[in-house]
């Protein structure tokens, strides 16, 4: 089990202890984390599971693949730390991962 942290735009922090080998989006949806919508169910097509990864984690995450890169063009307020949480598969190396939830998703 590992622990991941979602920080809402208003500053509130939500810590979740989870198993690995599932995606960060799955953890957020199953725990009802507000602000992560994931309309397409993890198919990397809706860009509504967007999050900002804490800058200390950017380099430690699996790299952005072509599908994610294509969809990151369409997120709300993209930053250099933007990722789609459906493309972040959790492993034990990602224990204590911390992400910020954007103030909105692109069509919400």
């Amino acid at each position, binding site marked *: 089990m590992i622990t991941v942290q979602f920080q809402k735009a208003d500053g509130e922090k939500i810590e979740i202890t989870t198993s690995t080998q599932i995606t960060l989006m799955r953890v957020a949806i199953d725990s009802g984390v507000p602000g992560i919508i994931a309309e*397409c169910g993890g198919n990397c097509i809706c860009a*509504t599971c967007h999050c900002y990864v804490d800058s200390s984690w950017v380099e430690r995450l699996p790299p952005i693949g072509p599908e994610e890169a294509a969809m990151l*063009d369409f997120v709300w307020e993209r930053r250099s*730390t933007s990722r789609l949480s459906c493309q972040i598969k959790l492993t034990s190396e990602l224990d204590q991962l911390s992400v910020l939830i954007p103030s909105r998703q692109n*069509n919400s």
Partner: protein
Amino acid sequence: MNTSVILPAKKPADRQIISNGMLEANYPRNMWWMAAWTHEITDKPTARTLLDRAIVLYRGASGSAVALDDRCPHRSAPLSEGRVCGDALACPYHGLKFGPDGTCIEVPTQKDIPKTLRVASYPLMERKDIIWIWLGDKSAIEQTPHPPDELAPDSTWTTIRGYFRLDFNYVLLRENVIDLTHLPFVHSATFGQTDWIKVPEVEFTDTSVRYKAEFPNSNLTPVFGGPMGILPGKRVDRFQVGEMITPAVSYSRWIIKDRSPEPGERSDFEMRAMHIATPISPNETHYFWSASYDMLGISNELLEESRSSITFAFQEDAILLAKLHKNVKNDPRGLDYPEVNLGADKAGIHVRRILQRYLQQESQ
């Protein structure tokens, strides 16, 4: 906690994540669009609106097809009402004649022909059964790939062809044929392919998108099974793949394996379809289709039956999508309406992404 930089992001102009632009002229001009089936263009001029432009198509005495603006620069009469004289086209109003390059070659009432008296002539490319037209910047032709040939690879295939005029934006057709999860709902009574309720595998490049789906031990629509002699109700393996090659053209392939063929009968079959769209305006589309079977000797009766089933099934899409188009067009909110993207929209979203890329390139 986030010391990140805000990148210059593309903000959606409306509430579609990736807009399909269906209420506007959302068609790239610098590419080959289908103008007609080869057999349609004869020495009787044909009027056809293509990408908002009224065009006249005809075949001159030399046998080459010609495309000109369908508007005489003298008094705006439609040249398509005129007649072909040799390689030229004569205006029905005052008899002015225009050559294949659009230059006026005869004014019946005067000897001097003004240099200004000319109509635009559009490059055509005639390949096999299709005439393609270039309506964009002529300097971009060379770097643009040739349009695809029809998919029937050789004369051992049997092809049927058809045409529809659609009352909706062409991108809706592009989205419709790249995502077959509407089959169980729109076509339950025709294609009856009710197993199409899964997200296919999707691959894409900057210019094309493709889906793949396998349906082992499944039924095959009689629309395709009939001409190929596969009995209704027979279980077969279906492998389906489809691709948008350009915003004008998609194809689909149905690759069938019969694991228990009747004695002496073949076990492997293939059916291919082409879906070619040419915008008339943002609200109307020419839809040229063909279906090819990898065999010869299909009876005319079976082919006609197949043609009418396909026509009937496409009509189901045509009616629904025209209503969909109206639904958006008549709503003052237009595309500024929250649109949800499901997992099965993957190929369709890449259609839009590719289209945006084409349009952005052209606006530069």
